[in-house]
């Protein structure tokens, strides 16, 4: 029965090991007054990747602290520049200059977000591999930037309503340009369905004093996952979510308890639980020939985006 073929990524990470990495990261970051941060991040990603297994092979993160350090420095530079403009303008005590300074500051941030997403996608995918085959992102920065600015402006003008369509548009764009060797992807979601789902989720969450939020979260996760397609040649392979509201509740309630009761120290265990939950609830259905994926991406290196995305803290996609 070829029809029922399904595959999953399994996460084998352990809280104790992740905790060790965390502690060393924190200590070195403190001792170096934050400069170790990129290396800390590289170590964390490396660990998370190498504990993720698909078809008997682990994933690999090839990024290095040194590469990310360059991005980190660039990011800090840009941030400092923006803040200097803002504070400089405010310090003049001139109303017009202050307003211009504030405008430049916010426009700068608005431009930074898509650039950061783009950069992070380019960098992260190019540094991810499985069985030696690299991922890749082929989106165009200018195109993405345009889309992002237009989308945010419409969202602003429609008081956020267009946001649902905007999010879907971004996902479609990103998945369309995502590659895993010869495998390509697409996202099949629709703005209107996404909008109604969110409206319903929001309303019911209000009415039920938040209880419905777990169903809402489950729906959001399912809408994200179920609309992803993977293509190997002519074969389309759908992704399928098996997450339940109960599962979500258990994950979030226990994780909050873990983090609060340990004053944040047990965060690594919470991360491991979340990773396991996510991966165990995603299925890739259909006949995939795991031995026939060919290398297609070229070498790429520019790490600015990686850390920018982190600094602005946007949930990546």
């Amino acid at each position, binding site marked *: 029965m070829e029809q029922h073929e399904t595959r999953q990524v399994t996460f084998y990470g352990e809280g104790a090991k992740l905790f060790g990495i965390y502690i060393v990261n924190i200590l070195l970051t403190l001792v170096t007054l934050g400069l170790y941060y990129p290396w800390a991040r590289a170590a964390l990603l490396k660990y998370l990747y190498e504990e993720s297994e698909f078809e008997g*092979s*682990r994933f690999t993160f090839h990024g290095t602290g040194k590469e990310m350090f360059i991005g980190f420095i660039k990011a800090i530079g840009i941030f400092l520049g923006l803040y200097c403009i803002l504070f400089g303008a405010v310090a003049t005590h001139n109303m017009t200059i202050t307003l211009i300074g504030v405008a430049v500051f916010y426009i700068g941030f608005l431009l930074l977000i898509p650039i950061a997403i783009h950069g992070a996608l380019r960098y992260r995918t190019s540094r991810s591999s499985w069985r030696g085959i690299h991922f890749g992102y082929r989106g165009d920065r200018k195109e993405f930037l345009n889309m992002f600015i237009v989308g945010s402006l419409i969202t602003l003008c429609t008081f956020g309503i267009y946001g649902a369509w905007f999010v879907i548009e971004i996902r479609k764009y990103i998945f369309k340009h995502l590659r895993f060797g010869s495998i390509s992807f697409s996202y099949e979601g629709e703005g209107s369905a996404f909008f109604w789902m969110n409206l319903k989720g929001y309303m019911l969450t209000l009415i039920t004093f938040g209880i419905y939020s777990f169903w809402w979260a489950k729906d959001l996760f399912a809408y994200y996952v179920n609309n992803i397609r993977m293509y190997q040649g002519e074969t389309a392979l759908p992704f399928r979510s098996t997450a339940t509201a109960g599962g979500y509740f258990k994950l979030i309630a226990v994780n909050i308890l873990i983090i609060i009761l340990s004053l944040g120290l047990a965060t690594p265990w919470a991360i491991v639980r979340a990773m396991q939950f996510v991966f165990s609830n995603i299925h890739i259905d259909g006949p995939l020939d795991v031995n*026939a994926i060919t290398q297609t991406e070229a070498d790429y290196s520019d790490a600015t985006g990686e850390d920018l995305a982190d600094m602005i803290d946007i949930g990546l996609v």
Partner: protein
Amino acid sequence: MYNFSVRYHDGRLSIAHDATLTLMPDHWLIHYRDPSGELTSVRWTLPGIVTDENFSHLFIFRFGEFPQQTIECKDGNLPESLKKRYPERPFFKRRVTDIFKLNNTTIAGVAFTVLMLIGLGYWFGLPWLAGAVAARFPTSAEIKMGDTMYENMIRAYEVDDQLTAKLNDFTKAIDFKTNYPIRVTVVTENDANAFALPGGNIVVFEGILRKMKTKEELAALLAHEVSHVHYRHSLRNIFRSLGGYLFLSLLLNDINGIVTILADNSNALANLTYSRELETEADTKGMDVLQSNGIRLQGFVDLFALLQSEHGDVGSLKLLSTHPLTEERLRAAEMIVRGQKGVVANRELEKYWQVIAAAEHK
């Protein structure tokens, strides 16, 4: 002993070959049967081999230009054999992160030690560092920073211009022995409170002025606040709390927090609590100032009594957080008062006090 079973990826196709690795004197030989059954071998010359540094028990090596070839080996004897075969070429560097490959008890032990160190650093290292930084901070920059903070926070209050002018006259009649430009502002607030900003700005709430009965009380209050300025207490506090924020946000891996703090306005920073140590220092130095000006130290005792009656019990009220008053401070002041000598009548001070008292008690 120089043969190991490995998985081999050629970097072009995602197939995993079960291969044998043979360690030759100047190269590695990887041989496997490809899907058609044909025996294939690959040669890796030593200089091109890169060890993938990871946290697991899997040994991974890569070779060549992008796209790289990869082998993965689970055999625990591999590092020993590599050392024997190629003594000049270390394949594994010692790293801090190697401890993760040890057992859980070791990890827990290390983690505990590190936590202890972090705790020590937070409780002892940070205040020391903040003090050191504050001590080296240029005075002109401090004054500038303090003035900016003052401008930001004074907007939240209603300034009493007349009383401010009178109080400044009073202040000028005392020699505080400081190079900071001391500027006092009176704001219309009923609470019995006052605070000092770095660089010489002191804000006095009208409520405390109204409750004062003698010029010595006012002089004591000002001397105390000026000591906070002169010994850079608020600067120390700011660095301390900045450091604390930095520390915690790093601990929680949250770079945003740092950015937020940098952008944060100064209000929160200015309303910080002084430690008991700093309060005591401000008291002692303030008393020295009164001594040298020939002003009666009884002012301190009265001031503390006033604050105590005003705020009742210690520590429970919000306002007390800026001046944690304790029974001890009152007792200490009473002790010192007994030892005072050389009280000088200061006519000028008395004159200005009368003006203020007249304005307050009309």
